[in-house]
């Protein structure tokens, strides 16, 4: 089986392994053929989020992908490449802090029902693999977009009964946030955990409306006419 890996240029490796995961193939290449190949991994079981790469143009977890002859493996997009398949996640992860993706204050003695908890059960399955971030087309035009996973995280906390100040997060998500998403759904298609950031962003939009915010592309209504160009 031939595996093509995007390094400084595309390098083809020949391995004799059928039915192995891509991560097992990478390990074998590193162990027996080329110790200089760089990639990340940890749990081997799809829960630590380390091993996301692109295979044939689509984001996957290397440890959950069955390697196939001719696969082209590339690093994630929208983030600087450190070496081979390893990307620098600092900026991507920094959006969690920018978006204030946490619970504002400690919540004591708040009664949480089964329904309350199930509201954000799926969103809290996120493993921060950044597949969605890599697939999102908005970064081509706006590097400061808070992005799919951090907005999903904001929804997780905003929808939680334990959050005392949801408005603070909705305020923050107005700039480079909920209205900058094109609702293209690419993030949903690649999420290994079945999370739809697009759907979460839509929920955040309606929450924003509840707090009196409007889609900025409509905010010119009444003040004249809207020529369709974005208004900031």
């Amino acid at each position: 089986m031939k595996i093509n890996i995007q390094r400084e240029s595309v390098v083809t490796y020949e391995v004799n392994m059928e039915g192995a995961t891509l991560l097992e193939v990478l390990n074998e290449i590193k162990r027996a053929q080329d110790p200089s190949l760089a990639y990340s991994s940890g749990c081997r079981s799809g829960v630590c989020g380390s091993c996301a790469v692109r295979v044939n143009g689509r984001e996957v977890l290397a440890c959950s992908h069955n390697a196939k002859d001719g696969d082209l493996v590339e690093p994630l997009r929208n983030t600087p490449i450190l070496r081979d398949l390893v990307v620098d996640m600092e900026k991507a992860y920094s959006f969690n802090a920018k978006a204030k993706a946490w619970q504002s204050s400690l919540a004591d003695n708040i009664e949480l029902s089964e329904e309350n908890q199930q509201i954000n059960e799926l969103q809290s399955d996120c493993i921060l693999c950044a597949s969605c971030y890599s697939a999102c087309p908005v970064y081509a035009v706006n590097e400061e977009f808070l992005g799919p996973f951090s907005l999903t995280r904001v929804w997780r906390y905003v929808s939680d009964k334990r959050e005392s100040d949801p408005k603070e997060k909705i305020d923050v998500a107005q700039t480079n946030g909920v209205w900058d998403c094109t609702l293209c759904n690419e993030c949903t298609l690649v999420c290994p955990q079945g999370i739809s950031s697009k759907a979460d962003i839509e929920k955040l939009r309606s929450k924003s409306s509840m707090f009196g915010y409007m889609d900025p592309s409509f905010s010119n209504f009444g003040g004249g006419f809207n020529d369709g160009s974005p208004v900031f």
Partner: protein
Amino acid sequence: MKSRVVVVGAGGAGLVAALNAHQNGAEVVLVTKEYPTRSQTCMAQGGINAVLNETDGDSVELHIQNTLKSANALADESAVSYMCQEAPKAVAWLDSIGVPFSRTPNSKIAQRKLGGAYGARACYAQDYTGLKILHTLYDRCLAEGIEILNERYLLELLTEPEQSGKKYIRGVSLLNKRSGEVEILEASSVILATGGYSRVYNTYSTNSLSSTGDGIAAALRAGARVSDMEFVQFHPTALKGSSILISESARGAGGHLLNSKGERFVDELLPRDEVSKAIHDEIAKGENIYLDIRHLGVEFIEKELPQEAKLAKLYENVDPADDLIPIKPAAHYTMGGIEVDSNSSTSIEGLFAAGECANHRVHGANRLGGNSLLEIVVFGKEAGINAAKYAKNATKDEAILEAKELSENEIAEIKRYANEISFYEKQAILGEIFYKNVGIKRDKGALQEALKEVQEMKSSLPKMGVSDKTKEYNTNLIEFLEFKNMLTVAETILLSAISRQESRGAHFRVDFPATDKKFRAHTIVDAEGVVSYEN
């Protein structure tokens, strides 16, 4: 650097320690060789133990008793009592910061029964307890603005001798994985939270690839003591090829264990060590062992064991609804670690330790399921508070820049090693030997053979080295450093296991099958490899 606490390791223990040190007024820097959310803590599924109400006959006292029983008389009673008493508070705190625990229809935190427990006392968040705790703790650290340095590999703990002869901590040296530069972080106190050492068993471990015992090896080199290293817990059902964990819930729900002839050979609901032993004996007879959950039905498997089904398909190419799942026992949890007192303080002043890398003497010879997540929260907090206190009163504040050159020279030297022998191959051999000779059953001859092998590997390290000489993001170099640490740890496991001439909990000596009162003591190993016993 006055009042600065450096926390090395950002799993559950490290994050809790960092939060508490921060709240107690220290300037905190959190360091990890990965990113916090990639730490092994994310892999925990089962739950975290706490008796939340005593209505169903369960009680804190029973939690203590169950823990002590499982520990085989090798746990510290007061440490266990403290941990179990703090458990409800620990879970309430996790709940208060937003951990999405599963709930019951009447709005209580849902609990399930794990092996060895009197009742349902493990609080869980579906199949993702560790993941959700870890991520929520991480978010909390961001909220508090704690400084986090990602992708920094701990090289050495920097210490200075005191006039009394005791050593005190001065900081750490780190390898910045991205730049390849050595960095020095001065600190008044340091907390090690670098996780366990099951990867010594290489592919025979359920653990994350990062559980290589780095912190324990660094602590030993710095002169700290480690204890109870011979106690390694094996999980009975890991996938045969990959050692990925198949959760105990499969057996709990009625799954059977079968040999090649299709016979059941053990009561599947016995404690982990007994089931592991039975499987081990069958394998020794030449049998292949399978987990059979076909009779549970497609619907049940899809609903209750979706992760397991997915992993069995991916890694063993079998569909558990129609096929048997090939399994084997694998190294899962390491009870031993850096010796700490009730303040989480090591034998080096200002050096604290918490989590799986530390030995708070709460698991003894055998850990109870759900007690590890509890330990990292309860003692992570203690370590954080005590390190902050220590840092505030620390008076020493001199520069330690000469350490940079030492670490740089060491790395330069490794890059000059001959690289005639592949350390990846040796690592595979180490795993094989450990599984075979230092596994579920051991005897003197097998242990001594393994020790000889490890010592030979240690002395031939200069013939191994790395073939990648690049500076930036050299994972070949990092993996070599990890291998070196694993050899250090492996030696302490063997010295301890040879010296403990009895069977207790996870340590089973074929040549000494009985438990011996004489060994009702903790095995201590120091940097020189001297073994002693203490109560």
